[in-house]
């Protein structure tokens, strides 16, 4: 299957004071379309840095990152923002919802950047809410929702613009076991039924087990851990 995400010789260095830290060392990665990839590794191993590079939130020091056919390291800040809006959905550990907006308004947020009419946006939001099982909570603000429900809203927001790639950073890190199971099941469903390509960072082996492929990031290098056949 053709790669949706390709990284070639990617190096990422951070400068902290007088010290330069190389987080990723000449890293190569191919993620085929419709793959559910889990990135595991200890703290400071570079897995979130790698995720940020794939999602276009950060730029490599050198190397090439191609996502959905776009060499994203060459894009300007504005182009990269528009590219993210079109191609990437983000799910964070702490949900990162807008506290003043209701669930449906949070989900609608990425659609404000499209040319969809208000009626179309409303329809899409309703469909997304139904997908994550929160139709009855549309008007609730984040503070009125449980952690699991907030994460569902975040997933609906990530999916609303029908992105090519879903990037999840510890999506169950703040949830209890039952809620985590529901969220991971939902991600697995999206991968299996809607062929969404998912790259997920996790510490949790049980969470990683939901993925079709597991890679370990250790000291800025990737180690293939497991590849499962499609479920």
């Amino acid at each position, binding site marked *: 299957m053709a790669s949706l995400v390709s990284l070639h010789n990617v190096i990422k260095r951070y400068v902290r004071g007088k010290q330069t830290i190389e987080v990723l060392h000449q890293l190569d990665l191919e993620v085929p379309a419709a793959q559910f990839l889990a990135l595991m590794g200890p703290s400071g191993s570079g897995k979130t840095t790698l995720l*940020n590079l794939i*999602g276009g*939130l*950060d730029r490599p020091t050198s190397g090439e990152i191609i996502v959905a056919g776009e060499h994203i390291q060459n894009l300007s*800040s*504005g182009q990269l*923002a*528009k590219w*993210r*809006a*079109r191609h990437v959905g*983000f799910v*964070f550990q*702490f949900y*990162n919802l*807008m*506290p*003043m*907006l209701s669930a449906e*308004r949070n989900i609608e*947020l*990425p659609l*404000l*950047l499209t040319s969809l009419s*208000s009626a179309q946006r409303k329809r899409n939001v309703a469909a997304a809410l139904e997908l994550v099982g929160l139709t009855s909570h549309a008007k609730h603000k984040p503070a009125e929702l449980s952690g699991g429900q907030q994460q569902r809203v975040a997933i609906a*927001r990530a999916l609303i*613009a029908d992105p090519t790639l879903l990037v999840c950073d510890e999506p169950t890190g703040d949830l209890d076991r039952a809620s985590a199971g529901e969220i991971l099941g939902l991600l697995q469903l999206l991968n299996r039924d809607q062929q969404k390509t998912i790259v997920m960072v996790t510490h949790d082996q049980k969470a990683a087990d939901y993925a079709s492929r597991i890679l370990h990031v250790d000291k800025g290098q990737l180690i293939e851990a497991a590849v499962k056949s499609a479920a």
Partner: protein
Amino acid sequence: MKFFRLIWIGVWRKKVRTIFTVLSIVVAFLLFGMLQGIDTTFKQLVNQGRLNVLIATNPAGLPLPLADLSEIEAVPGITRVTYRSLFIGDYQSLRNIVIVLPVDSDNFFAENPMFSLSPAVRAAFLHARTGALVAQSLAARLGLKAGDRIPIHALNALKKDGTSDWAFDLVGTFDIPDSPIRDEPIVLMNYAYFDTARATDTGTVQMYQMMIADASQAASIANTIDNLFANSAHRTHTETERANAQGQLAQIGDLDFFVEAIVAAAFATLLLLTGSTLMQAFRERTHEFAVMKTLGFTDRGVSALVVSEAVLLTVGAAVLGLLIALALLPALGTVMARVGAPGLRLPGIVFAIGVGFAVLLALASALPAAWRAQRLTIIDALAVR
């Protein structure tokens, strides 16, 4: 429009803080509107002063002999001369203060065409020795009509009979359209009646008003008049009607300076207040802005949202303040007109300038927050919780 809800919610994120900020802006622009309204009214009064009309008064404020009239009339370049006196009185009670102008009824209306009245009323006034004309607004307020006998108690015009009570036969009303003094409580009476009945300063006038043929000659004609009486006991100070109005305004003080100083101080304070409020609001929402950037909002887009919130907050509150000033000024003007002050209005241009100031204020106060919003990096902002 689709971003309006987002902007609106951003503005009201901290309701109490927003309400206090809005109140500060409303008060500042109410102050701006009121002061500018007063200043503009006085400027309008000065600008309505004509350049082809000269006013001669005594520099010490003393009355001038009516006997000087013929000498003034003989000055080359003068086409017509009228004169008048003035006293303050009240009608029935001190709540109804009036300004009584004993006028030379033959020439007064010819030289002051802004006084609008029907020829019949004018003729009636001319032929009724004890006749009086009152401003339309005053007649309406006091319920006066032609044919009424109106007593006015003078505060500074004693009669020969030892009283200060003047009685007039109201022959009609006049109007001064488009003038700030339209609502002033003016009563016109015949000078001849005034002069024969008063106990003091008989044969004097408060001022001469001269129409000249060529406004460019105003200064030299004024000099000629003043030179005529330079060595007399009743020296004159002659100037154009506009300069005279300007001089009267200057007696209050440098109104422009006061208005500008107060408005500048209010706006400078407001700039600091809104600027710090917006920066505080920005700091509280750094994480949210980073999330928005993550979702695909561009640096400029987020920055524009910050500026839009500031514009909505500031301009909205400023318009509210100006609307209150718009409503209050005429009401205040009506009250002030009763004691002889010009009527007050907030001209459209002042309103527009106020809104312009509000936009500038919003842009200036939002600048630091907008700049930081634009430069905000997602990774750094998301790392801080």
